[in-house]
Structures are given as structure tokens and as C-alpha cells.
């Protein structure tokens, strides 16, 4: 009986401590959910939804994400700002751009026109997380290859000995990779050697 009472006491104590913790967590979640979505959060959702993460380092900074989105002609009217809350006009504009439907906007200078274009496509702007589901991987996603220009050993890439066919910014930029890389492996045994029959 004593054991049962002790167990109940422990249970009640745990419940007393865990319940407020759960309530705090739930409140924190509620508070977070009630906060407006920022440009930074929207950029993160777009980068992942459009399959552009491959152009970025792991856990990219907000500005690195903005940069890649801009290279794919996606930006709010007043540009990307880290803390700015996302308005319906911002959301409509970037979603239309992400869907490559800009040509269907009747009056690009009127924010309402971007919202109407989305409505005509059957996409509504009630929740960012739901609206973002409408975007798909960009078939011609592009970005400057940071591994070529970077000096950071965590980012920079190897100039591989291959006639690379990778397309970035949708043109080949890595074609200089094979600069006779095997020709100088041993001093005195350079290849190609002027003209030496083998």
C-alpha cells in the first residue's frame, strides 16, 4: 500500500512539474505561431521548396538565401529585409515569380493584381505554410557557383580533372578545370612533352 501511495506521490509530483512545462511549451509555440512570418522565414521556405538549397552552404545566412532568390528573379517589391514581416502583397509577388507566371499579371505596378493572379490560379494567401506548397522545384534554377570563387576552406571546391559539364548560371563556368592536371606529377616527367614519342 505504501508503495502505491509513494508511486502516486511521485506521479503527482511529476505531473505538477511536467504540466506547467508542457503549458509553457504550448504557450511558446502559440506565441511563435501568432508572430508574423518574416522575410527571412519566407526565404527559407522558398529556397527549400524551389530546390535551390544545392547552391548554398549548410545553414545559409539570410542574405545568402536572398542572393540566390534574387539570382532567380524572386524578390518582394521593396526587396528582401531580414526582420520585415511578410505582407500579402509580398507573398503574392514572390509566389507568382516562383511559379514563373509574371507574364500573367495584368498590372505589375498594382499589388492587388499579383494577388488576383494567384486567385485565378486557385492559390490562396491565408497561411504562408500552405501557400508555399504551391511552388515546385525550379526546372532552370541557377546561381553563381560559390565553390569557384570562395576562399573559405569550408566552401571552396576542387578544380577537378574532368571536362566538367556542370551548368551554373545555366552556362558552363567550370570548363577550365582540366588544365593538364596530370601533366606535372613528377618533375622531369611532364606530359604532354614537346614532341616525344612514347
Amino acid at each position: 500500500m505504501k508503495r502505491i501511495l509513494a508511486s502516486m506521490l511521485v506521479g503527482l509530483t511529476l505531473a505538477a512539474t511536467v504540466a506547467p512545462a508542457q503549458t509553457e511549451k504550448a504557450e511558446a509555440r502559440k506565441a511563435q505561431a501568432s508572430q508574423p512570418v518574416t522575410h527571412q522565414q519566407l526565404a527559407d521556405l522558398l529556397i527549400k521548396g524551389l530546390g535551390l538549397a544545392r547552391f548554398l552552404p549548410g545553414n545559409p545566412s539570410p542574405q545568402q538565401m536572398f542572393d540566390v532568390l534574387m539570382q532567380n528573379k524572386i524578390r518582394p517589391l521593396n526587396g528582401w529585409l531580414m526582420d520585415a514581416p511578410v505582407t500579402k502583397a509580398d507573398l503574392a509577388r514572390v509566389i507568382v515569380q516562383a511559379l514563373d507566371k509574371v507574364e500573367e499579371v495584368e498590372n505589375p505596378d498594382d499589388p492587388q493584381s499579383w494577388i488576383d493572379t494567384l486567385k485565378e490560379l486557385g492559390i490562396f494567401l491565408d497561411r504562408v505554410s500552405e501557400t508555399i506548397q504551391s511552388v515546385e522545384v525550379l526546372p532552370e534554377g541557377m546561381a553563381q557557383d560559390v565553390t569557384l570563387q570562395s576562399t573559405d576552406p569550408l566552401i571552396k571546391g576542387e578544380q577537378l580533372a574532368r571536362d566538367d559539364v556542370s551548368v551554373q548560371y545555366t552556362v558552363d563556368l567550370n570548363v577550365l578545370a582540366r588544365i593538364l592536371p596530370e601533366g606535372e606529377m613528377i618533375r622531369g616527367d611532364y606530359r604532354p612533352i614537346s614532341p616525344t614519342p612514347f
Partner: protein
Amino acid sequence: MKQIRLCIVAGLLLALAVPMLAAYAESPIHLSNRLRVGYDDNINLLPEDMDPVDSFRLIEELEFLVNLNMERMYLGLRYRPSLIWYTDRDEANADNKDYDFLNDLDLNFSYEFTPSLALALNDTLRASQLPSIYDEYYIVRRDDDNIYNSALATLSYNILPKTRLDLSGRHILLDYDNEESARYGNYYSLVGGLTLRQQLASRTTVLGDARYQTLTYSEAPADHNRDADMIFFGLGAEQTFSPSLIGSLRAGIENRQYDDEDYDDHNAPYGEASLTFLPSPRTRLTGAASYSIDESDAGAYLSQNRTYLSLSLAHDITAKWSFYASTAFTLNEYDADYALDDTDPATPALDDGTEKTYLVSLRLAYRINRINWLELGYQFTKLDTDLQNRESYDRNRVDLGWKIQLF
């Protein structure tokens, strides 16, 4: 050839299986195919006075994408096998293979443990089948089959709402199949790094970073020791200047200590800058510049000082026509103080030297409909070198391609 047949069979099976997977609603799986037919006026990268070999070529490239985006987790996977076939590569020697086969795999994974703690894993795998090429008088290259892999893990923690600390580790591996290539080319490198970012305002972030890197040529003989340890300290800033202009700047100092004690430590500054500008809704411009000590392209030197400049333009002429242009320039400077010593007195000591590379790349694309594109491309490349036993060359290539997004 057997491997290619296997790959073709695997590709066909993939083509049959993936549509079934993709048939599920809101599929995260995508497959596209790019076929290019082109002409290359110097496939062996020979100087003009050595009678360069030209060839038509065919590039077949599949791209398989998985993009899985969940509430806390993201998985992005891209696999891209490419076959490059040359019509005229095998004229001189019966041993020559007339194709290269490349496999590219990119993996991006991230997981958000809490709103302030996230983990990212990135892997880049490049597996290349590069058979030997013999010209009439030259060994253009030996069998250069190789695997390159770069694995990066980054743990990010928001210390304060506007302060973020990134802890990163990277492992890089280059591994040649051929024994001779492996002896001087195989290496692995380990990198550890810390980055602290502080958001100052809605448009500005400043950062400071520290990196430690070791580089080990795992099979190199003692007289060809190019192993090194490097330490980097840097500062940087990222700035949104206007709605259509964004840029970043990073600079610091590197200390490079060579394993071979005959060489002094190499201290040098490094820096990089990039700008993206949208002058109109239809046009994007991106420029970049960087300077650093880098691993040497020429095997007889321990390192090089590399300056890199690039500029890219993308312009939508109409809704269907797009034009892209890129240029890049690289200046590699080699210092005789960091050239390998040669024990053979008959071989002259190496001097200072420079290599310049130039690239111009143009592409015109026409979107036929939502899933089909036609493209016309041109690339000019030029190497201008004054290093001993290296040859300058230039090369022109033209390609006509068709891309289809299958699903």
C-alpha cells in the same frame, strides 16, 4: 563499355520505376534529360602549333532530383550521370576510349531541433571515368578515373535572437584509381571552423570566422611532400544596399605551415567579394572577385596565389527567350620559394611563374513549353602559361541542346 551498358540498363530501370513513385500526389521526385550535340576545336588542349584535334561530341545528361520538405526536416538529393562521347578522339591510338563518363551526386539535409538549434549535412560526390588519351606523339592523359567527395556538417545555434554561432567540420577526399596518378594526386583534407554572425539591422550582418585545415597527400613519396596545415582568421559583412542590390565581403589572413621543414611558413591575406544586381525585372547581374593562397594546379609547386574574377548576366528577352553570359578570369602566381626541390642536378630549378585562364560562355535558351527547352551555347577558354613544360592553348566549343523535364 560494360559499365556504360550497365548504366544504360540502370537508367532504363530508373526511368520505369521513378514515374511510378512520382505518380503519388505532390511527388518530391523529378527527372529531366538534357541532350547536347556540339563541336570542340581542341579536345586534347594542345597549343596551336601542335596541330590540335577537333571533334564533334555528344553529351547525354540525366538529372534526378528529390526535394523533400517537411516541417522540421529538409532533404534535397540530386544525381546527375553524364556521358560525353567524342567522334574523333580515337583516331591516333587504338587504346583510346572515345567517351568520358561522369557521375555527380549532391545531398543536402537539414534538421531543426529547436527554433534556435539546427543541423545541416551536405555531401558532394563526383565520380569520374576518364580513360587514357594518347595523341600521335603525346600522352594527353593517363587513366584518370577518380572519386572526389566533400562532406560538410554544420551545427548552428542562435545564442541571441540576432546572434548566431556556426560550428562546422568538413572532410574532403580525392582518390585516383591509377597507381601513378594516385601517388601524386590522392589527398584528404580535414577542416574545422567557427563562424559568429551578428545581425546589426534589417539590412546588415557582420561576421567573424576562424578555420583550421590539414592537407595530406596520402601516397606521395617523401621527396614530393606537399602536406600542409593552415589557420585562417577572417571578418566579413553581408549588406542589402537596395531592393535590387545585395553584396558580401570577407577578408582575413592565412598562415600555411608546410610539413616539409625546408619551406618557410607562408602568410598571406585573403579576400572575396560578390555583388548581385537586378537592374530590371528581366535582368540579373552577378559579379565576384577573390584572392587567396590555393592548392597548386602545377604539381611541382606547393601552392599558388590565386586571383579570380567573374561576371555573369542573365536576361529574359521575352517570356520564352532567355540569354545568359558569363566571363571568368583567373591569375595563378607561382613562387620559386615554394617549388619542390629536385635532387637531380640535371633538372633546372623552377622559377617564378604565372598562368592566366580566360573564359567566355554564352547561352541562348528557348522555352518551347512548360517542360521543353532548346539551347544554343558557346564557350571560349584560353590558358596562357609561362611555367616550364606547361603548354598554352585555347579552345572553342559550340553546343546545341534539348532539355526536357520528364516529371
